[in-house]
């Protein structure tokens, strides 16, 4: 692929992207600036606080995410009338566009939305739990662990169908490894980040070794996956992600009250009656599994889990049930948006979505590092 040939973005795509981006950001920003309005729900022995502002924000975010999914279904290389595209996706099974819409575009947007939600909620858990904006699954080695296992599998001639499973196992092993190495009478964010960065480079070396050691054609099969892409996503992928999300997201939601206590530091959490080590292990396990599921399907997509929770925190403040859901929705929006850009900005050349998230995330990560370098 000649990079120069894709250097000029299509003006109308660029324009449309910019408009959509501005609308999204200003809409979310406006709603987030409204006042907190707390109402209380009490039913017998059940009770909860409800922040109407967060409710509104989540509603708006949900609508935007659905709109992005609709755009993903409507736009594409293959010319499909916009309205027909939607009707085909929603109810018209007899349509002549059935294959393009329901076998290519629909699974793709569903996978992008779910993967974005998984990655962002995973990042939110890690960052809040460790009280450090640099701690996210991609920084502490979950992605590299997945990548090593995937690359090794393909290099030794394994089946592509096993790739998600290998990636999942690799991600979990890396997470456990980093956790064990950083554990020293508790977990400190700084140590976790440093060891994660170390493990990351070690695993990158392993990948490079495998790449030079094994036949190029096998290794190349892993290269596209490695950039992180929702290209060629199938309903099977969507199913894996959907099941993972439906199990892990509510599990993490229930654990949020424990997370909010652990945020206060080990001693205060213990004083308030938290079983510190057990609760933290559950939370890290759930967070790592959520990232692992996403990475297993879409590849080691960087920076979503790092950036999105930060943006969500700017809009909603510290973590609560409502802001957690918002973080997930924002993750879905972000990945869907990045995928739309990846698809159309340089059309007809399609970029892996990971290139877009990395292009946005790389500079962001550097800014963050510079801002927080005193903490490291």
């Amino acid at each position: 692929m000649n990079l120069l040939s894709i250097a000029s973005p299509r003006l109308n795509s660029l324009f449309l992207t910019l408009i959509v981006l501005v609308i999204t950001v200003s809409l979310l920003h406006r709603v987030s600036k409204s006042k907190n309005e707390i109402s209380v729900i009490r039913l017998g022995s059940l009770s909860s606080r409800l922040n109407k502002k967060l409710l509104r924000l989540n509603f708006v975010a949900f609508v935007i995410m659905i709109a992005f999914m609709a755009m993903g279904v409507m736009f594409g290389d293959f010319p499909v009338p916009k309205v027909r595209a939607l009707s085909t996706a929603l109810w018209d099974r007899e349509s002549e566009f059935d294959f393009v819409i329901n076998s290519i575009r629909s699974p793709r947007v569903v996978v992008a939305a779910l993967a974005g939600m998984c990655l962002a909620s995973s990042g939110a858990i890690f960052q809040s739990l460790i009280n450090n904006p640099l701690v996210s699954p991609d920084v502490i080695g979950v992605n590299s662990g997945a990548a090593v296992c995937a690359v090794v599998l393909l290099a030794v001639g394994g089946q592509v169908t096993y790739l998600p499973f290998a990636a999942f196992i690799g991600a979990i092993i890396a997470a456990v490894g980093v956790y064990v190495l950083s554990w020293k009478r508790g977990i400190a964010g700084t140590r976790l980040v440093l060891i994660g960065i170390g493990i990351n480079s070690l695993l990158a070396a392993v990948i490079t070794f495998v790449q030079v050691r094994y036949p190029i054609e096998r290794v190349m099969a892993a290269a596209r996956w490695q950039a992180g892409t929702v290209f060629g996503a199938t309903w099977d992928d969507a199913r894996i992600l959907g099941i993972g999300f439906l199990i892990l997201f509510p599990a993490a939601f229930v654990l949020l009250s424990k997370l909010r206590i652990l945020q206060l530091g080990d001693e205060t959490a213990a004083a308030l009656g938290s079983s510190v080590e057990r609760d933290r292990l559950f939370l890290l396990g759930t967070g790592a599994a959520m990232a692992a599921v996403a990475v297993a399907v879409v590849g080691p997509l960087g920076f979503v889990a790092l950036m999105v929770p930060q943006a969500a925190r700017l809009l909603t403040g510290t973590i609560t049930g409502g802001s957690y859901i918002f973080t997930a929705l924002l993750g879905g929006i972000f990945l869907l948006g990045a995928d739309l850009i990846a698809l159309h900005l340089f059309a007809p050349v399609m970029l892996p979505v990971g290139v877009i998230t990395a292009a946005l995330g790389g500079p962001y990560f550097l800014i963050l590092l510079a801002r927080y370098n005193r903490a490291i």
Partner: protein
Amino acid sequence: MQSEHTPSISFTGEDLHISYGGPKIIEGLNVTIPNGEVTAIIGPNGCGKSTLLRALARILTPDKGIVFLDGTDIGNIPTREVARKLGILTQNQRAPEAVSVSDLVRRGRYPHQRIFDQWSKEDEKAVDHALEITGLSEYKEKHVDELSGGQKQRVWIAMILAQDTNLMLLDEPTTHLDMPHQIEILEMLVKLSVDEDRTVVLVLHDINMAARYCSNLIALKEGKILATGRPSKVVTTEMVESIFGLKALIIEDPVTGSPLCIPEALTGK
């Protein structure tokens, strides 16, 4: 809130031995915390004040010895149940990023909440009460990082107040505060003990503040109790010399009548 407290508690430590894997910090210490009073643990730096407080609050497990809460070994009571009876504020608290005052204070209700019972009437009452006593009601929407040092300290105290425990342990709650803020916090704690019959245990390094505001003192030196009792009994010339190695004049505080320690010279010990 006071009606919800059990009328009295018993809180003792027996034959406590504590080390951090190295030399003994506390050795064979027996202590009884008088019910409904404000007790201060005093002593020189490194004498084991904070260590003792943390062991009493089961944050630190002693090598040997038992802390009894209402007659039961505190290590055998589920930690959440302990947290409904005993609150401790340790030193050097750090608030999470972008947390509001009311959010932080609400977290003190954790031991009383269940998964689907996150905001009961009692929770709301306790949090409002805590914010009111600490004078933070008007700041409740503010971010904790925007507050001054004295206000921050009050937020943390409000958090353990919201925990609504009969026993409140605080490790140097007045350190880094100027004198008006020190007085403000100590008067608040005394008022809590008087009005709501709570038992308060403080670690303080200012012996005069301790003598002025606390009804019971525990003087610690090198992991052992040297003296315990009313301030007039503990803060004496001989005692100050043996605890701090300080030759001092003890006069009567003209305002409160409590003993006031005026340092003269180090005895070189």
